[in-house]
């Protein structure tokens, strides 16, 4: 079933990482980009790829978690990590095809986008309007390297 997720237009992203700051502020009460649930990866020669969970229809992370710590929220359809059950084994991080689950920089838990209970902070803060909270028609779970090479082709060369 299609559902809403945080969708990024990578070509519009300017790499300012204001989304990271406000995400970590909202979730941790502190400005700490490495605790953000959305991450901006810079790629040569000057493009960015935003990593944020697509809330897949058939999420491999839910399946692989040995502790049943990853569950889908009924209301928002967000895939949530229940902190108290997470042991930091990183199985979900390894299995995520889009690299959108991260280790917390201080606590021994995995973290990911929880859609801010249906009101995503990053969407409101992006100065480029590159981040939207909209219906996603497909499991767009491609690895960042692939997105980056597509972007380079699309933006920087004549190749189709």
């Amino acid at each position, binding site marked *: 079933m299609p559902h809403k997720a945080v969708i990024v237009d990578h*070509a*519009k992203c*300017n*790499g*300012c*990482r*204001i989304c990271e*700051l406000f995400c970590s*502020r909202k979730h*941790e009460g*502190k*400005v*700490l*980009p*490495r*605790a953000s649930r959305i*991450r901006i*990866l*810079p*790629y*040569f*020669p*000057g*493009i960015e790829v935003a990593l944020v969970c697509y809330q897949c229809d058939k999420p491999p992370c839910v399946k692989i978690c040995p502790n049943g710590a990853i569950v889908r929220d009924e209301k928002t359809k967000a895939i949530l990590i229940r902190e108290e059950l997470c042991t930091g084994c990183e199985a979900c991080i390894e299995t995520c095809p889009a690299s959108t689950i991260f280790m917390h*920089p*201080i606590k021994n838990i995995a973290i990911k986008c929880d859609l801010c209970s249906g009101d995503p902070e990053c969407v409101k803060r992006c*100065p*480029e309007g590159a981040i939207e909270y909209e219906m996603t028609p497909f499991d767009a779970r491609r690895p960042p390297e692939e997105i980056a090479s597509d972007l380079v082709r699309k*933006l*920087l060369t*004549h190749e189709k």
Partner: protein
Amino acid sequence: MGEGFAGKILNIDLSESKITSETLDVHEVEEYIGGKGYAAKLLWERTPADFDPLGPENIVIFATGPLTGTLCPSTRMCIVTKSPLTGIFNDSYVGGHFGHELKFAGYDVLIIGGRAEKPVYLWIDDENIEIQNADWLWGKDTFETEEKIKGKYADRTIRVACIGPAGERLVRYALVNTDLYRQAARGGIGAVMGSKNLKAIAVRGNVPIEMKDPEKFEQLALEAYEAIKHSENLYTMKRWGTSRSVIVSNDQCLYPTRNHQEATFGGAENLSGESMERKLWIKRRACFNCPIHCGHLSVVRSSDYKGTIVEGVEYETTAMLGSDCGVDNLAAVAHANMLCDKLGLDTISAGATIAWAMECYERRLLTNKDTNGLKLSFGNHKAMNRIIVKIAKREGLGDLLAEGVRRSSEKIGKGSEKFAMHVKGLELPGWGIRAAPSMGLAYATADRGGCHQRAWPIAYELGSRTPYGKSIERYSPEGVAFATKYDQDLVAALYSLVACDFATGAIGTGQYINLLNAATGWNYSPERFIETGERIWNLTRVFNMRAGTQKEDDTLPPRIFEEPLPSGIARGRKLPRENFEKMIREYYEVRGWDLETGMPTYEKLRKLRLDGIVKQMGDYVY
């Protein structure tokens, strides 16, 4: 640990391979705010009175400020050292992401001294610090170096500051490159890193910065975002970046052309932001936490320069590698820009030095034999791009030009010193003087030599009111001294936060002070803030005098005094020497500096509580 700071200074002695960290003395920092101010104090205290900038005694200080790495938008870091180009204090600034990452790794300041025996790079991963072999990086350009380090640690979020081949070969205006296209470019800090055999610094940080009053700070930071969002002035900066200034500058006779022989350029339209928007730009790029996003990624899709990809072209580069070299081919300028970033050269000094060489070539002071057959005439963009590579490699004529315009002209002689456009060895940037003489005073007195970022009184000559409400009449020396002093002091304080030039107008000094106080718990007033800027300015002056600067060095290239502008609205204008002398005399007066020597008087230093430092100066000056 103090609020607003990460709390530590990281010391690296490359001679001894020694890594130590010390607790930041926040009370000591308070007198200098951080950034520029605190780094100036550290440079003063931790270097001997007389030393070679390219020797192991020199130190490179990477200094963040109390607002770096916070929710406050648009902050930067500064890198301070003794410049191999000028032989005096040098502070160069860079946005990007490196400084913020350094602070998240737990260090407000990184100090690198000594000299490694073999090429090394520094890896900072929070508290795990390693000095690593860099044989595999030596010789690589800046882009490749950054990519290779990110590849080695399999982490694209690592931040890298590195030098290119120009830094390795000690080109005196070699830069430090970060985030591919963000540079601490001026004054040759890359050569200092090269002299230490330090190829790169890579950093990853995981520690949040604590605020004294987090709620208040957040509220103020959110107000700063709003101010930037609604600023009318910043609309053009957001859309066109610094290249918004090309046409205005050209119309006002401020656009250096053919080595400052003129100040209007027929090809300015080609180099304008509008032209770049049409032909080159594909997306915007921003520094860490910056809603101004002034940068643009440019792609050249046709012509001989097809395949060029670079961020820019910034205004200064359009002037120095464009009009000042007589080049109106935008793709060629973009390509030259990319070469400079990649090879690690400051586009301003490179452009100015090449423009000087072109004038020498046209006047037959440099011959085809000197240039190895290269026709180095104004407008020859192919020759310009070729000579850039030669400078970075120190090949042929490039070896001479790698010394910068002051040393090059001293070597060539034959009157070429008269059109060597520098102050204290730092090549003048892209703003002419004869159509806005107040800028002459700003250049002549800037602490790092010919620099446009310490005061920019051009704005007042073009009609803006000074911060204290007075206006300055165009071409008149009246009131320029105080306005310049005021700007210099204010900027020194703002650069200690470390604020970015483009945000300061929208956020405002008062709001910055509120942010500073909320972050640190200090009690700065506007008066104390500007007085601290004055303290910093006097400290860098004392440093420079100790390093050999004399009052006579506070001057401008003879061309500015002697040759009237040939065209444009300021046609016929030069800067009359008596006007300059009046400005400089008044400047010493408002500064409280000795009119005979240009030194800060003892009373002035005592009033600024720099007398502790005066004692340390011992025999050197007093």
